[in-house]
Each structure stands twice: as C-alpha cells, then as structure tokens.
C-alpha cells in the first residue's frame, strides 16, 4: 500500500510530510554547527529609516513604538536593538511605548539593557511610558498630549515630573515615530498618527507583512520600512555591527533553500506524473 507498485513520481508527490519536517529541522541545525556569514545588500526603504535618524541633531526626540509580542520577537527584536543603539549613540532622546499587551516587559528588558550599554538613564535620556489598551485610542490620545493616556510612565512616575518629558507634549514635539509591529497596530499609526497628526512614521514589520506596506511607502505615508529579519540585518550592516539579525540570516538562507528545492522537486514529480497520465490516455 505504501509505495509498492507506485511510480517514482507518485511516491515523490505523496511523500510523508514528516520527512519534510525532518529536513527542515536538519537545515536549521546546520548553521548552528557551521555558522557562515551572509552578504546583505541595502534596500532603499531601510536606508531611508537609517538616514532619517542619522540626520537628527543631538537632543532631538524619536518616538519608538515597540508594538510586538514575543511571537514576533525573533524578527523585530533585532530591529529594536539596532535602532536603540543608533539613537543612544547619537544622544537622541527617546519616548518609548509598547502598545501590544504582551510587549511591555519585553520592551523594558531591551531598553534597559541597551541604555545601560550607552550610559543612558531613564527619565533623563529616555522615557518608557509602557502599555495602554486600545492602540487606536492611545495613538489618537497621544496626539493631543502624551499625558492623556499616560499620566504616569511604566514605573509609576508621574510624566510631569520626568525631566526628559518636560518639553514633549505630543507628536509635534517628536521628529518621527518608528513603530515595530507584528500586527495591525502598524495600520493604526498610519491612519491616526500620520493621517490625522502628520507625524512622520516608519515601520518595522515581519517579513510576511512587509509586502502590505509598499503602497504606503510609495504614497509617502511612511518614510521607511524595515521588512523582517533581512531588514534588520540590513540596518545592522548600516550600523556596522553584527547583531541577532545578522546571526539569524544563515538560518533564513538554509530554510529558504530547502523550500526552493522542495518546490522544484515537487514540480519535477508533478510534470512527470502529468506526462505519464497523458501518455496513458
């Protein structure tokens, strides 16, 4: 029953999917055993984000919205780290929010760690406002005043008493918003942040989401886009630092190669099957 009397192309097309799972596991383990570097070209949409921040003078404010969950941590955490390093290295002030319900603790960890590497202090060099439910409402409210949705920061300190927030009231006081999102919060930043308040918005999204946002790039509703791990690796290359994204690229290469080979092999079998059946008729 299992393959006896079947042609090679039928056996190929009906292969147990567990063999494919096993092959995927093997190709993902290979880079861990034999790491290799992956050359990464720089795309215009990633360079736009980097150059925008690079041209900001010291003391200017960037709003970094860490709007993702642990499920998309592998793709978006490297972006957050690269952007935080760049902002702190340039002595920019940061307002950080986390509009994903599972994100604040994760955001707190990365911001605290990167800030410590640059000797930056919470309240003096950056403010972490934390999480509030209903991202659309929160984004709209921050356009009026950050203090409306966030009377206190993540640590319970009244925002009015935070030195870095003294002259920051709403989006008019920030140079841009960079939203790293694994869901539809990215759309909300475009619809409410950029459309209603005119604040420049850039997005960092997962690979599968990236193609959805090119229309907004073309219409200049967003000024830059970081697509997935590759976008994060490009950003790290622009920063001349090797981070998690650059270390994750070999795994992407091997798994993508497997999928490409699987597509080719499946179609070889499919074409052979079709020809055999046409010959029989």
């Amino acid at each position: 029953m299992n393959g006896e009397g079947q042609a090679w192309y039928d056996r190929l097309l009906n292969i147990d999917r567990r063999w494919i799972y096993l092959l995927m596991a093997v190709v993902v383990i290979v880079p861990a055993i034999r790491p290799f570097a992956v050359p990464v070209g720089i795309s215009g949409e990633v360079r736009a984000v980097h150059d925008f921040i690079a041209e900001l003078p010291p003391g200017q404010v960037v709003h970094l919205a860490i709007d993702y969950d642990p499920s998309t941590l592998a793709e978006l955490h490297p972006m957050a780290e690269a952007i935080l390093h760049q902002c702190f290295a340039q002595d920019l002030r940061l307002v950080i929010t986390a509009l994903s319900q599972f994100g604040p603790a994760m955001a707190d960890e990365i911001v605290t760690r990167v800030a410590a590497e640059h000797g930056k202090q919470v309240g003096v060099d950056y403010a972490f406002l934390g999480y509030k439910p209903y991202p659309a409402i929160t984004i709209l409210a921050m356009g009026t005043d950050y203090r409306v949705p966030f009377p206190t920061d993540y640590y319970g300190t009244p925002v009015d008493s935070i030195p870095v927030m003294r002259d920051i009231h709403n989006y008019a006081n920030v140079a841009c918003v960079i939203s790293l999102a694994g869901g539809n919060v990215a759309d909300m930043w475009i619809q409410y942040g950029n459309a209603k308040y005119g604040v420049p918005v850039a997005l960092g999204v997962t690979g599968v989401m990236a193609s959805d946002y090119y229309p907004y790039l073309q219409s200049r509703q967003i000024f830059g886009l970081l697509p997935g791990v590759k976008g994060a690796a490009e950003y790290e290359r622009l920063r001349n630092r090797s981070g998690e994204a650059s270390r994750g690229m070999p795994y992407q290469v091997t798994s993508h190669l497997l999928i490409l080979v699987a597509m080719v092999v499946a179609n070889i079998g499919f074409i052979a099957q079709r020809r055999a059946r046409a010959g029989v008729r």
Partner: protein
Amino acid sequence: MKKQIPILIVFITGLVMVLQYFVPHATSEFLFTYANDFVIVIGILALPLGIFSLMRGTVIKAKRDPRERFYAIVTIAGFLAMVIAGVQRSQFTTPGTWLQNMFSYVMIPCQATIFSMLAFYIASAAYRAFRVRTWLATVLLVTAFIVMLRIVPLPEPLSGWNSAIVQWILAVPNMASKRAIIIGVGLGAISYSMKIILGIERGYMGGDR
C-alpha cells in the same frame, strides 16, 4: 422602544463623532478625548466578562471530557499564577520577580515556539501547493521562487538582477494589488459603518434585525 433607543443612541453618537473629526475647535477635541475615555472604560468592563467566559468554558470542557481535565487544570493554574503574581505593581517593573520570570522563561519561549513551528508547515505547504497546474499557478510559483531567492546569496550579476526583479515585483504588481485591496476594504468599512449608524445593520444588538 427596546430596539429604537439603542439605534437612536448609535445614530446620534456616530453622527456627532463623524462631525467632530472635521471640527478643529477646543470643544470638539474635548468631546473626542472624553469619548475615548468612555471607550476604554467600557472595554475594561468587558475584561471580567472575558475571564468569566474563559473559566466557564474551560470547566465545562473538563466536566464533559476526562481527557481535557489535565489541560483545564493547567489553564486555570497558569491563569491564577499570573494574576496572583501580578497583583503587586512592583512585580512588573522589578527584574527577577515571579511575574517577570514566568513571563521571560515560560510565556516568551512558548509564544516564540508556536510561531517558529510555522516554518515546518510552510515547507510542507510549499511542497504540496506550488505546482504548475495552470498558467496562473505557474506565475505564482515563479514569483514566489524569485522573491524567496533574494534571501539566498547569489554570485554577481545574478544577485543584482534578482534584487532588481524583486524590487519591481514589490513596487509595481504587488503594490497595485495591495492598493486595490486596501481601497476595497476601506470602502467596505465605510459602507458597514454607515449601515450601523443608520440602523440598517443591527448585529450589535444580538443579531436581532
């Protein structure tokens, strides 16, 4: 009146909020902020409802099916552990607390693992789905092949050609189709919202039309 009052409230509120968007007066902004606060309050009131539904559904499933009892106990125990651990505000902001450790060493790995398993399913799906059955399927296959190839380091000039083709695919046909979808969805949302405001669509009243 049981049907008319909710429809009237929705009509008046919807109309006021639509007009508010275009009125740049301080009173209009105050109304907007006030309304947003109410949305948050109503949402918070939905939280205990959601928790009750979760617990009730879990207990009922455990009573009906003995095989589900272990998972029901895990669900309820995990829920109670996080709630009890998170009662104190300091549990959120102080490193090394029970809540932080459960989040960092249980929640994050679990969520990341669930998402990571997609790679296996995608490989299997690509093997079975991307076949040259029709001309359109062939176009889909070739496009997917080219776009996925950009991750793979290729020798020059193949790398340059591939990047240029991928950029064209993303910037022209992909953008055109996504734009059409976005506009369609937007028009659909406007239409649906108008139907709710005008009382034509009454699904929010429990499906009673």
